[in-house]
């Protein structure tokens, strides 16, 4: 099925891209294209012009320093998962990416494109929540940093309204003694998470976990941290996690749709949280 006609531009710099976004209404940035091109072919959204970001080399890089890692918006999910530094320190992100679609999807999909739909069932976003990453956004008034929860709250629509472009993700350096993981129950049709749980777990001592961050996606309307669950599990014995991980999400907060009920999703949060915590703990250096 053919899309409606639209113009196309492939600028070479972020500044040019941002300028183009503001020029005509319904101008949309094109990253990996998975969601956007499907929507256009089905004529579900208006588009007057696509601004293809593929020719902006700066957006493709993954750079690490002492403060953390800056992942360019156009970095492909497969490239991020293959990055040695991230493999060693951001298990939840690597797990989440591995669970996205299939090989071809991950070869084309970008982290910026994923974040443009941060307000939906989104694997990557759950991982970024527990890694406390921030998103770098460029717009007519320059660059700003947005927290992942803020990005989720506004959604892609807020960025588009402000003619802003996601240019990258800053993942803070993960301290030694912290490990993360992501566990997911896939929708068998589209591979999106019916429920996904990301956790980051602090150093364990005497068989106890330290601090813990838990984020859920798919089960709730948008991805979110489960702060009360974090408080309930922090410092608890690893051996007790499975029995303690109950009722982490109230069914009242979970969504019901054609794929699963709120009750089932809330139940999956417990199952997956226990699974993700076990995986993260296994990644921690031995207690000492």
């Amino acid at each position, binding site marked *: *099925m*053919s*899309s*409606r*006609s639209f113009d196309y531009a492939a600028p070479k710099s972020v500044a040019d891209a941002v300028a183009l976004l503001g020029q005509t209404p319904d101008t949309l940035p094109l990253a990996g294209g998975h969601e956007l091109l499907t929507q256009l072919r*089905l*004529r579900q959204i208006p588009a007057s012009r696509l601004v293809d970001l593929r020719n902006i080399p700066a957006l493709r890089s993954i750079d690490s320093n002492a403060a953390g890692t800056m992942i360019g918006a156009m970095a492909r999910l497969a490239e991020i998962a293959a990055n040695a530094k991230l493999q060693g320190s951001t298990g939840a992100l690597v797990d989440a990416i591995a669970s996205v679609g299939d090989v071809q999807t991950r070869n084309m999909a970008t982290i910026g494109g994923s974040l443009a739909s941060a307000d939906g069932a989104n694997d990557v976003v759950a991982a970024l929540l527990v890694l406390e990453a921030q998103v770098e956004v460029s717009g007519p008034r320059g660059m700003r940093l947005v927290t992942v929860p803020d990005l989720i709250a506004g959604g892609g629509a807020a960025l588009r309204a402000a003619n802003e472009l996601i240019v990258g993700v800053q993942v803070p350096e993960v301290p030694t003694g912290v490990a993360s993981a992501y566990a997911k*129950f896939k*929708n*068998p*049709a*589209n591979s999106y998470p019916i429920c996904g749980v990301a956790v980051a777990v602090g150093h364990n001592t005497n068989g106890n976990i330290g601090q813990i961050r838990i984020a859920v996606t798919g089960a709730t309307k948008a991805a979110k941290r489960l702060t009360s669950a974090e408080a309930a599990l922090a410092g608890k014995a690893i051996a007790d996690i499975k029995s303690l991980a109950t009722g982490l999400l109230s069914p009242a907060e979970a969504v019901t749709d*054609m*794929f*699963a*009920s709120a009750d*089932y999703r809330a*139940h*999956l949060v417990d*199952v997956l949280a226990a699974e993700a915590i076990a995986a993260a703990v296994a990644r921690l250096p031995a207690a000492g």
Partner: protein
Amino acid sequence: MTDMTPPRMLGSRQKRVEDPAFLQGTARFTADLSLPGMAHMVILRSQHGHAKILNIDTTAAAQSPGVVRVVTAKDIAGHMMPLPCIWIPGGAESHFPSHPFGVPGAGPVLATDKVRYIGDPVAVVVAETERQALDAMEKIRVDYEVLPAVTTPREALKDGAPQLHDEVKNNLNAYCAYGDKTAAEKAIAEGDIVVELDTYNQRTINNPLEPRGAIGEFDKETGEYVFRGTSQSPHDHRLLLALMVLGIPYNKLRIISPNIGGSFGTKGYLYADMPLVLWLAKELGRPVKWIDTRSGMMRSTVQGRDQWMHGQLAGTADGRITGLKMVAHANLGAYPSTIGPGVATAMVGRSIPSVYDIPAVSAEVYAAFTNVVPLGAQRGSGRAEATFMIERLVELYARKIGMDPAEVRLKNMVRPDQMPFDNRVGWLYDSGDYPATFRRALTMAMAGHNELGQMKAEARARGKYLGFAAVPFVAVSGVGPSPRMAKEGMLGGTWESCNLKVYPTGEICVMIGSKPHGQGHETSFGQIAADELGVPLSSVQVLHSDTKRATFGQGSYGSRSFSVGGAAVLKAAQMAKKKAIEMAAHGFKIPVEDVVYTNGRMYPKGHPEKARGLQDVALNMWYGWDLPAGMEPNLDVTTVYDPPDFNYPHGSQAVIVEVDENTGKVEIVRYVGVHDAGVPGNVMILEGQVHGGIVHGMGQALWEGAQFTDDGTLLTSTLSNYPLPRASNIPHLDVEMSVSPTPNGPLGAKGAGEIGTVGAPVVIANAVCDALAEFGISHIEMPLTPEKVWQAMQNSKRFGAGGGAI
């Protein structure tokens, strides 16, 4: 010197000659075709399940850039009739209807006063490009008055339900009864043990890789129409379009069906686009092309199953089944599709006792119209639903009397010495050792495994519930004997034809009426001719899919291609061989019976040095200088084959599943099967058919199911919300073949395309119920999604054993 017997081509593993083009991407499909001057058509479809059309305003669309023509129902009035239904169940009295008035509720090519499902075609736009046509389509304004809708057959039949068609009272298309209802009811009333089940065999959406497509062309000089498109029954479509829809001469319509990327039962039906592209090609004086989308595949292509079934089974306390009664409500959707009503009734009702010898059997099917997509076939249709019901009932019965389900099955199974066996509702099973295949499947399933109780305990320790089930099945195939099909209400000859030529240069050309849509006819049909004539496969060319070639063929469906169409090829090869031998005898000046034919060569008995090849003989027949008295020149024969009866492939499958205690997710850990499709043509193709068939059945068991809202909106309208089986979800399949030749055909072959599908859903469902036996769960409806299984376990925990059934 002794005769050299050539290695048999039939029954051997031959790589498919079609595959290089498919694998290298050079094979051309309908969407790849482009004709000079071609315009593009798009179809505006209803957005409502049920609505009155108050007004259609096409003014803006007609003025949109590039638009050639906009067409609504009023433009085609008088030019084409509604799409016919040619399988009207109900017996000999009801067939040969005078079209269209004999087909109450027949679907108009474009909706006139009402739309009755969300894919109902309302208008078409033809433009220079597909994009321009779509742009213009967005400008068509249709004013609807939304009407109350009904989406399930039991509701549709109730008084006061929304009426789809004025001429169809209570939305009832057909009521069919099979077997002896009085006897079955008596057996149930008097039965020591009675079990019953109400189950919904859910609607499945056909999803071949290639969506449908159609290109119409009209030649002003010759007056000939050419249709190119995804037709798995090109000859039959030619007849139906010429005779019943367009009213044009048969000799002015040619149908060419390019490569087809799968069908599973969808592309043998008539659809609105087919007459439209032909009529428009003539109207506009240029070819017109229409290519469907995936969402079109989902919402306007015939769908499968959708049987609401109630079954009762009676038996003795020691495991002897005494009676079976089934009442089904089939959901036909909005219109009677080409053969949908017959598929939905006879194929279910007559298949209900499956492999069992049950003294009293009754089946009744009500087929009702509703505001959903028209029902057609899906691989295994009718037989899969019947098998699901009977095998669930047998499982429930065995558990109730505390017997091993396998033992109960063996105790009631038709034995080889009972063949041919009248199943008491219309099928006469031809051949096979059902108990032997069943025992073999049991053995295969447990080979290399611990005893079942031990396996269950070991799985429990890993947080899994392990279950086992084995089911036998039989699936009527090889449609069919034409006179018998007429009695079933089929309007059409179900014979197949073959034209076989031996060219003067020695190559052999086989033209078949049968049309492949993935089955590999060029290979397996070539094997038949090569085998009979003793020549290499490479010297046989199989031509198909163009009505200018073979005489006729009803098409490829109902697992009939090889056993029926193949028989025509065998007959043709035998006739050609006989004629060649007569010619050789004439040349050698010896009696015909003294000619030895081997390896494609002929010689006088005892004189192989005098051998003459088939090419040499064919060349002399071509010259025609010196022929036996009465022989016509040229080695070119045409045959027609109409089978004496159906054939009945059978088999057994067994599975071991594990259910996750936390999530309810079902994992198949072992899948075995023994399948018997009679004498095989190409073993590799046969195995592929069985594998694909099983996977199809797994899809229904675990993932698939169309979901409509009460107003007829299709929720599962794309592949992002309709899960199909994926390679990564499919376990290794351990499949064996057995061979019981059918007497109902010269090849001894039975249908292979659907046999894998019919048993798969129920063997999985039974195994899951076995896994969850300790919860008292007796039944879970398909698809067995993790949540449904988990909910059943939860309910059981909450309400005690027995509370788990949902």
